[in-house]
């Protein structure tokens, strides 16, 4: 029998010991009968999740993130053992795989992968293959671009064939861009490199042109261009509902966005809102930015029951009926061919016949130097 005296020191020691031990205590939700996903919240369909949990007798535990860099940090800090499934877009999956955060996937274990549109099939869509080993590292999910949504009554469609439209004083005070700094800089870089004619010159990384890998000279020009653009912007919107209101009210006539607001505007019109000729330009003559959201399996998942569960979940997510619902809820285009179960309006709304345009877009990527890009963005904000 030993006595414990409750002193201030003993309480502080116990508190400190608990704090230090906390990271090593295995959380209850990490039990083997769970599937843990790090994902975008917009893709969570509660009824489908419940059905998956009931049919597989498992618990689905989602964690959410906004941007790729945030997911990357969570995955690295928590380690791939904290999550079984993760989502990412653009070239981020290749980075995850290089860093040993992902495992190879097997398309033969996911039957619905046979329903992909031709551009996203395993053999064609190389973004989800490791360039060194050729291994497949994930499954395409939704796709989109960062194009221009505009009111064709106020902005002539031919003006949106070039990115100059977003930097034109003709629309001063009636333009808007998102608050995402990577895409603002990358999009401006398309215009700057076109003006400088620097795309065909040797690139900083020795690879073909990528708007996310820029020289110091190009970054300086991007900074100047974005500073000029500031006086033309009404605001940099934080969320889609804000942009929806700005476009619908006519306060903004053109904005760069993921086509989600464009779809919401058309849907609102179909439901009785005042008719406005809203259109969306996917790709401009200088190029455009694109993204393909994916489902990836972390390197913490070993062959066996957990891997089968992950495959089963992905198979459910890319099944035509679930994909159609996700497209409607999240407002995105899908990589699975849904044309046989969609009507003409849906085909137009979800760009089902324009998926081949993804091949010409520059995929979202990690900035060549987040520190330099941050400085450029801060200078733009402070100017």
């Amino acid at each position, binding site marked *: 029998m030993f006595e414990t005296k*409750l*002193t*201030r020191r003993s*309480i*502080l020691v116990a*508190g400190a010991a608990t*704090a230090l031990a906390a990271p090593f205590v295995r959380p209850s939700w990490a039990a083997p009968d769970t599937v843990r996903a790090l994902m975008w919240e917009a893709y969570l369909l509660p009824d489908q999740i419940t059905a998956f949990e009931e049919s597989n007798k498992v618990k689905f535990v989602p964690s959410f993130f*906004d*941007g790729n*860099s*945030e997911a*990357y*940090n969570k995955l*690295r800090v928590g380690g791939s053992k904290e999550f079984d499934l993760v989502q990412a877009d653009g070239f981020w999956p290749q980075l995850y795989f290089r860093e040993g955060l992902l495992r190879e996937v097997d398309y033969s274990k996911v039957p619905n992968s046979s329903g992909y549109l031709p551009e996203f099939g395993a053999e064609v869509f190389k973004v989800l293959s490791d360039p060194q080993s050729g291994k497949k590292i994930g499954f395409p999910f939704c796709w989109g671009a960062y194009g221009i949504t505009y009111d064709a009554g106020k902005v002539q469609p031919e003006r949106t064939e070039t990115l100059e439209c977003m930097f034109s004083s003709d629309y001063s*005070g009636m333009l808007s861009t998102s*608050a*995402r*700094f*990577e895409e603002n800089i990358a999009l401006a870089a398309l215009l700057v490199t076109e003006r400088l004619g620097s795309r065909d010159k040797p690139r900083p990384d020795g690879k073909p042109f990528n708007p996310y890998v820029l020289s110091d000279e190009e970054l300086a020009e991007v900074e100047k261009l974005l500073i000029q653009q*500031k*006086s033309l*912007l*009404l*605001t*940099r919107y*934080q969320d889609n509902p*804000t942009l929806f*209101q*700005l476009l*619908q*009210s006519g*306060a903004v006539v053109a904005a760069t966005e993921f086509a989600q607001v464009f779809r919401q505007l058309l849907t609102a019109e179909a439901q009785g809102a005042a008719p406005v000729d809203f259109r969306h330009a996917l790709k401009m003559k200088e190029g455009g930015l694109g993204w393909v959201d994916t489902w990836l399996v972390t390197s913490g998942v070993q062959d066996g029951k957990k891997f089968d569960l992950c495959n089963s979940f992905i198979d459910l997510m890319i099944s035509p009926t679930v994909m159609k619902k996700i497209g409607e809820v999240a407002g995105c285009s899908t990589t699975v061919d849904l044309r046989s179960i969609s009507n003409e309006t849906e085909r137009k709304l979800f760009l089902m016949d324009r998926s081949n345009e993804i091949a010409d877009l520059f995929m979202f990527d*990690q900035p060549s*130097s*987040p*520190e330099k*890009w*941050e*400085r450029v*963005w*801060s*200078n733009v*904000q*402070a100017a």
Partner: protein
Amino acid sequence: MQDANLQRRLILDIPTGFLLLFFVMPLAALVTLSFWQTENYKIVHEWTLMNYGTLATERAYITFFLRSLVMAIGVSVTLVALSWPIAYFIVRYGGRYRIIFSLLLVIPFLSGEVLRLIALQGMLGPAGLVNGALIRMGAAPLRMIMYSNAASFIAFIYLYLPLVVTTIYLSLINFDFRLAHAASACGANRFRIFTEVVWPLNLSGTIVGFMLAFIPTLSASLVPRFLGGPNGTLYGMSMAQQFGESGTWALGAAMGVVLFLFSAIALAILSYGVDLRRTGFTGLGRQ
């Protein structure tokens, strides 16, 4: 006796432990991180003063800080000027409804800050209540209240007015108005009574109110994010970006340390003039 000792220790040690775990340790981690570097979303564990050098020399961060400082001073001074008549009215003429009037000020706090900001965004925006009405009347919309520093200013006033009114109210309710009557009886006019009796004897409560608006405005990130527009980035918003999208946590940590030190110094200077017994916060009533 032993039980009383144990009880006393628990009462002291639990908050102490809580503060150590959730305030001192994170602050220590922040200070440590501010002397490291981040490179491509990775922390480089090499001691350096580079982040502080960047903050002291780069125009952008100096601009953010000065913008925030000017905004915080402007907001706090305006709030004190607005809150005084409101609190004075409640205390002098509120009668038995004084408590109800002061509780009414708390109503906006029943909803979250983000919700209140979104509501304000809708009100000040191009299709909002103000500009919508102007457009319907055939007038041009007020551009200065749409996504601008003026919009942020209005939002700060809206957010912190209840706090400042309440602190000044608490100070005034503990003030002995017989002193004002005495000054009046001695021939002092209203202006002199206010400047030489009422104001100095309620200065402590006023300073506390000023600080309650000044500190959060200085570090605010949500208001400029929702309402500030392209030219409205403030220091707190930039700091939040370092920890979010850009992943430059070490620079963000240095920004946090600078903000903490500046706020602590400002607090220390302002606290010099505060006599808590006069603020109404001691619970001791009139002294």
